[in-house]
């Protein structure tokens, strides 16, 4: 199963890692939105290049990225292959007995490139700080307290509950249970999940007691402090600026001002 630990590369030394997390999140988010909104294929290609540049600057392991883009590609490829048949439009190429829509093919390519760029950018966005720092930074960017706490606690207990689920599955396997497409399987999975939920619910009560006994009253104190330096501003302007320029070029391209 895919690793769900996104903290494992948070201690690399790179310009992206050293960036103030609040500024990093805000700037890269702007770039991601800019990239997914472009309409021109060539500008989308430029966006893809930009995202690769950010990725390279982050010094994150590239093999990991290849693994991460797999899922979105599996989702996007069918669209890429279906659109040429369904999009219609005036420009078509006849291939064997099918009329392939050139517009559909171009739209598919555009979608695929935008999607890839966004996924590639998401990786340096979140993998360059430990998850709790990211959430603290989001609080700095006005994410409400309650949502931030749910993020932190959900993330913390995901790992534990996944282990519990795996133990339950091991126990099922050791009792010679094999999943089939039938009602008994639904029943066994249903009650096994029910058990997981009961345990989670009871654990949440114990956690709350432990929190209260250490003085919790709804607010989560934090020792994390952020500080913007000159370099942080420079990086932020560069990345957000790139996002704006991308949109300007895209506007020009779609208006036919440049080819």
């Amino acid at each position, binding site marked *: 199963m895919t690793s769900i630990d996104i903290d494992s590369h948070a201690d690399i030394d790179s310009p992206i890692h050293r960036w103030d997390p609040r500024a990093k999140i805000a700037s890269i988010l702007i770039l991601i939105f800019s990239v997914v909104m472009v309409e021109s294929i060539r500008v989308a290609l430029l966006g893809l290049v930009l995202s690769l540049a950010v990725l390279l600057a982050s010094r994150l392991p590239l093999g990991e990225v290849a693994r991460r883009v797999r899922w979105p590609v599996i989702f996007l490829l069918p669209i890429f292959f279906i659109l040429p048949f369904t999009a219609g439009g005036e420009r078509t190429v006849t291939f064997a007995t099918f009329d392939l829509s050139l517009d559909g093919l171009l739209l598919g390519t555009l979608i695929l490139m935008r*999607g890839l760029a966004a996924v590639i950018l998401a990786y340096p*966005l979140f993998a360059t700080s430990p998850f709790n720092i990211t959430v603290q930074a989001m609080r700095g960017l006005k994410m409400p307290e309650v949502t931030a706490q749910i993020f932190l606690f959900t993330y913390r*207990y995901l790992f534990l509950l996944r282990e519990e689920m795996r133990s339950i599955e091991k126990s099922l396997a050791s009792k010679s249970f094999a*999943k089939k497409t039938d009602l008994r399987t639904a029943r066994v*999975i*249903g009650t096994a999940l029910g058990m997981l939920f009961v345990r989670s619910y009871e654990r949440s009560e114990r956690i709350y007691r432990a*929190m209260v006994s250490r003085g919790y009253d709804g607010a989560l104190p934090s020792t994390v402090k952020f500080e913007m330096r000159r370099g942080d501003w420079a990086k932020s302007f560069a990345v957000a600026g790139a996002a704006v320029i991308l949109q300007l070029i895209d506007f020009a391209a779609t208006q036919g001002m440049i080819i």
Partner: protein
Amino acid sequence: MHISDGVLSPPVLAAGFAIAGFLLFITLRDVEAEEIPRISLITAAVFVASLVHFPVGPTSVHLVMNGLAGILLGKRAFGSVFVALTLQALLFQHGGITVIGVNAVNMGVPALLAWKIFEGRRAFPSPKREVYFGSLAAASAVIGTAMLLSLSLLAVGDEFKEIALLVLIAHLPIAAIEAGVVGLAAGFLVSVKQEMLVTAVCDGAKS
């Protein structure tokens, strides 16, 4: 099933974030401190449950579980779905960052629907009512999600008509499986830990 980055148009993305933001605000604004660990743990459990494979003939599908979130968390289910989707986007790249708003609406609104449907059980004295209403709620949540998903695609343009239809059809077996699993889970919960289902009722009554 969620949409990936790069497919939807800016107005659809913006609408997604606007609706999701509004719903987050009204469903989470009066959260008490003691609810926070509960919402978090149930969210984590929903996340883990959605990783479970269920065999369908030679292949297998993932469970969606937004219906179960609705049953267990009542109106808090929307926030739960939002957090779970964001974590899925970060950890597994299922969906993406720009579509978190749209995906949260597509899965979170049906979760709220599931909660309301499940509440309907109280008018029926049958001892198996949790099973039936749990199944109904779960199936409705999956089909609701599939419909909203198709609508989001159609909002991009007509060229997505066939894909939207395909998405809808592909969700039918998932809805059936989810109905079975969630119904039986709800039946299990009412016999083992009734207050888990009652709590959702109380939260609903408050609002």
